[in-house]
């Protein structure tokens, strides 16, 4: 890789050990993907929940944080993804003091590194959305796919260590989605029916992600008339990234790089694959549970927006969560603070639900809290979360937000 003088100085350790490590890590990764040089980034976003970090990851961050201030502080604004423990509400979930202590150590290390602890996977709705063409280094696949696709920013999926490295250096290897050639459509889908509601958008996203199946495939969709909402795009992208490993999609006439089909195709467009109702029902059928008792209903993955929080509160007004069922709602600290001010959190909690701040259900020791609470049958409107949690010992099922609330109130899937 071609390195400029500053990059060579960082790699040589002239700007401290944290930046030396960061450059070494990124040179190794960039080499695997044939990066020719580095590209400056304006923001970094790090996934660093303690379930993923473990003791080894936390100790690594503490090691970086132990260096002198001038050597350890990040060089560009750096945000965090949801945490593993909401320190204001962890004992009732069955999370342990050991988990909480690991969380406290992580927060202390990240704070010493100059990271803004936003604890959010919806930063594009709440903190600072990137603009078209802006190079960034984001963790959380949902953040990356939304910002690449809906906003036209440029980011690869950055795991925690690589996001940390980008934050410490203000750059990332120029490969993958930073290059025009990896943003061109390779798969084409003709959608016969516009999805209705967040869950249906998630089902469509999950199906396309499954059909693409690789980080290096870029789907383009036709047949979507009119702009979806931000929350619809959020669920669509998060599910697509979850079922495949898809970091970018185009929708003709909707997303900024696809004013028409030709704009995202090199040469003749790929042959279209028709997506009909039966295809969507096929995926949905993997997560059916009508009539079953439900242990826990989860609204999360991605964290809820103000609009989703208000809708949950509306659906719960005048009702109460069933005594044998739990209802867990995960949102960002930013949204939670606003929703407390607006009385929305109070209405949700008055109905017997739990609002968690700065976490997301699947990255907060889902296996352990499931075992601690006896939760196996889980219901959610998030296609992403039902895809993830089968491996965590749950029997996940899918329903729209209205049916999820009804299930939480009656104790059964409608």
């Amino acid at each position, binding site marked *: 890789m071609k390195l400029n003088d500053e990059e060579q100085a960082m790699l040589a350790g002239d700007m401290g050990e944290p930046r030396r490590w960061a450059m070494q890590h990124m040179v190794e990764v960039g080499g695997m993907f044939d990066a020719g040089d580095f590209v400056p980034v304006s923001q970094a976003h790090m996934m660093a929940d303690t379930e993923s970090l473990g003791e080894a990851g936390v100790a690594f961050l503490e090691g970086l944080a132990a260096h002198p201030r001038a050597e350890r502080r990040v060089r560009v604004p750096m945000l965090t993804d949801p945490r593993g423990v909401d320190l204001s509400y962890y004992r009732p979930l069955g999370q342990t003091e050991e988990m909480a202590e690991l969380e406290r150590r992580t927060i202390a290390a990240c704070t010493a590194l100059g990271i803004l602890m936003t604890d959010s996977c919806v930063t594009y709705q709440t903190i600072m959305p990137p603009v078209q063409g802006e190079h960034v280094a984001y963790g959380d696949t949902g953040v990356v796919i939304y910002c690449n696709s809906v906003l036209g920013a440029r980011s690869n*999926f950055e795991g925690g260590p690589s996001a940390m490295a980008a934050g410490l250096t203000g750059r990332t290897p120029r490969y*993958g989605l930073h290059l025009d050639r990896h943003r061109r459509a390779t798969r084409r889908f003709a959608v016969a029916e516009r999805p209705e509601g967040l869950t249906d958008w998630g089902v469509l996203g999950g199906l396309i992600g499954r059909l693409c199946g690789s980080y290096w495939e870029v789907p383009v969709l036709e047949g979507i008339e009119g702009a979806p909402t931000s929350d619809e795009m959020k669920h669509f992208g998060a599910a697509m990234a*979850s079922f495949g490993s898809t970091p970018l999609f185009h929708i003709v006439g909707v997303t900024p790089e696809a004013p028409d089909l030709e704009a995202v195709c090199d040469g003749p467009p790929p042959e279209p694959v028709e997506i009909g109702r039966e295809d969507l029902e096929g995926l949905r059928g993997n997560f059916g549970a009508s009539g079953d008792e439900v242990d826990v209903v989860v609204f999360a993955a991605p964290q809820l927006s103000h609009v989703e929080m208000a809708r949950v509160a509306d659906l719960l007004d005048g009702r109460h969560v069933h005594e044998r069922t739990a209802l867990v709602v995960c949102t960002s600290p930013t949204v939670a603070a606003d929703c407390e001010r607006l009385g929305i959190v109070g209405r949700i909690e008055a109905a017997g639900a739990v609002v968690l701040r700065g976490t997301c259900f699947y990255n907060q020791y889902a296996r352990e809290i499931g075992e601690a609470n006896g939760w196996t049958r889980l219901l959610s409107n998030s296609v992403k979360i039902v895809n993830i949690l089968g*491996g965590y010992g749950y029997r996940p099922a899918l329903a729209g937000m209205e049916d999820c609330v009804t299930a939480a109130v009656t104790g059964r899937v409608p």
Partner: protein
Amino acid sequence: MTLRLRCHTGIGPRVEGEALVADDDFSARYDLDRLAGTFSRPGHKLAGLSYVDKVLVLNTAKGGVASAWMLREMAARGLAPKAILFNAANTILAQGAAFAGMALCDRFEDGDITRLIATGNRVIVDPPAGLVTVLERPAPC
């Protein structure tokens, strides 16, 4: 008789181990019980099997970014694969392998790697050389 399989230059050290192969995808978050060292996702083709000290041979990486931290934690606790071979890696698994010091290779010249190596084969993975050597060839189909 050995089989030499050329691939793109990979990440991590040269290692030797026993292959565990499936035409399926991989995420440390979605698919594993990392405390038990087994594949835990019911629908995964390796469900119930131990991945510890194996050379995992799979189609591609999927899902979220968590695997980048998890590989190092798995290695620190002695419950990690020795190497991972993919037809096509994603960025997360490459970053995670670099962070963990784990061998990882992809983009094999001779085609689908999940068909070129069989479970139980002894293999040498040499990422800097872009070479995987199968010491015992799979039985003919």
